[in-house]
């Protein structure tokens, strides 16, 4: 077996998710190559070459792959996929955008967001917002798979794989990049943070998210949000945790003013320790919380910050 892993990268840096995807590839077993596609991605390729278990890193460095648009990325992967039994990517917005194109053009199914490898053909994945876990077996010759990072522990970085360039250049006249507005933050990435503190509609306003910031600073935490908080315009969309937002599984998740709808739970219920702060003692979030504190967040948060 041989596996091609699509590297996840942003701003010239290899994203943490890739080390989790390589771990999933190791669970499948076989030779593992990593594809780095983009423009000016030499540093990404070097970082990918350090991931444990990687045989070689293949680099497609060309302007057509800048911003990793789906059309050229899909076409490139289709060119390369023939040599592999599995193509894997993170279940990130990039992986989700690109991989189904590869599957369709290769006339195979895609297996989305696996959380466990049973064997090289059989995988577990959450369905219905994580309220059921399906075991699916694929008889396709090529398996195209996206990987949920929280399901696999990242591999280490003591490797030294060979780096080779891929000359394939595809055409793209159908799509072009216009602009990008990325959130700037000094805090850890939501998906990778050891501690996450999230606010919901109960926060009342975007201004009040400052109450979470002081605590996040002390704990080195990332800040997340419920969809209601995003919809109300308190915070930007990239902070949404849940079925249709980001999936997190930190050591500690603190939910503040969040009721605990199944769509929110889908994104955080695999956290190791869950704390809920809510004034409604009947709120469903308490059913998944290890430690629940009933009360007004506007009183609790300042006190919590002072006592940490």
């Amino acid at each position, binding site marked *: 077996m041989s596996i091609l892993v699509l590297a996840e990268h942003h701003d010239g840096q290899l994203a943490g998710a890739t080390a989790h995807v390589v771990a999933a590839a190791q669970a499948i077993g076989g030779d593992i190559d990593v594809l780095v596609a983009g423009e000016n991605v030499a540093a990404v390729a070097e970082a990918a070459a350090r991931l444990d278990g990687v045989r070689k890193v293949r680099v497609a460095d060309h302007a057509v792959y800048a*911003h990793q648009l*789906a059309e050229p990325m899909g076409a490139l992967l289709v060119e390369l996929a023939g040599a592999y039994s599995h193509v894997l990517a993170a279940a990130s*917005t990039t992986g*989700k*955008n690109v991989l*189904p*194109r*590869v*599957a*369709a*053009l290769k*006339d*195979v*199914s*895609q*297996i*989305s*967001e696996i959380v466990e490898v049973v064997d090289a053909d*059989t995988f577990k994945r*959450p*369905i*219905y917002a*994580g*309220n*059921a*876990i*399906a*075991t*699916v*077996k*694929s*008889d396709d010759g090529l398996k195209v798979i996206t990987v949920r990072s929280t399901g696999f522990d990242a591999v280490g970085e003591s490797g030294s794989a060979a780096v080779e360039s891929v000359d394939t250049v595809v055409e793209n006249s*159908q*799509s072009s*990049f*216009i602009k*990008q507005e990325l*959130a700037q933050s000094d805090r850890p990435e939501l*998906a990778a943070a050891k*501690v996450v503190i999230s606010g919901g509609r109960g926060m009342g306003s975007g201004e009040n998210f400052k109450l979470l910031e002081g605590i996040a600073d002390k704990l080195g935490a990332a800040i997340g949000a419920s969809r209601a908080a995003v*919809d109300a315009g308190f915070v*930007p*969309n*990239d902070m949404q945790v849940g*079925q*249709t937002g*980001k999936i997190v599984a930190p*050591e*500690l998740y603190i939910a503040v003013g969040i009721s605990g709808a*199944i769509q929110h739970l889908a994104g955080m*219920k695999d956290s190791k320790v*869950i704390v809920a702060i809510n004034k409604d003692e009947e709120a469903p979030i308490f*059913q998944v*919380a290890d*430690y*629940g504190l009933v009360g007004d967040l506007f009183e609790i948060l300042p*006190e*919590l910050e002072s*006592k*940490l």
Partner: protein
Amino acid sequence: MKVLVAVKRVIDYNVKIRVKPDHSDVDLTNVKMAMNPFCEIAVEEAVRLKEKGVASEVVAVTIGPKAAQEQLRTALALGADRAVHVETEERVESLAAAKLLAKVVEEEQPGLVILGKQAIDTDNNQTGQMLAALAGLPQGTFASEVVVDGDKVQVTREIDGGLQTVELTLPAIVTTDLRLNEPRYAKLPDIMKAKKKPLDVKSPADLGVEVASRLTLLKVESPAERKGGIKVGSVDELVDKLKNEAKVL
């Protein structure tokens, strides 16, 4: 320009699902079904394009059992002009759905196809991208804004780090994210009118597509339950528990 919208019949998003005792699947008997929430947003966007004079006709399409016609009638009540039902009782994976939709695209020649980003039953998030690949069209997935301008469309996409805007040549495929719009409710007179709108029924065989898939569902289980925790009485107790019991501080 004609706009095609794909709508899927799924379990209502408020329903808590149960796994069948034999672990063969999720139990959907007597469960409330509805249009996938992302598809409601797709229909809304198409109807708004028509109201703005950008779209001339909105066609809704679904693939599924007879009962899925309820969702097509909903789309018609919300403002679609006519509907296409590809009727099958089989389980249809995203790849087969995309192949069927590609055939409908070939027949209908729409300028824009709008799908949901994800069906909340399988949580697959694939069909729109697969359709784009099969139809040879560009895609704007996870859209939070869609602006048609002549023979191009600009799509603002919700990506992990924030927002990205891409420009696509038409015809193109768009998949909706939650913040694209707020869908309207169907009014009673529109629900009545929808009953008279045209609804065309086809079979996968009519479209020349094989629905069977090489993916087998071996087992469906409930996820590991979290055991209920405790309520603490004060911030001091919480901090103490986190430090000394959970050891996460």
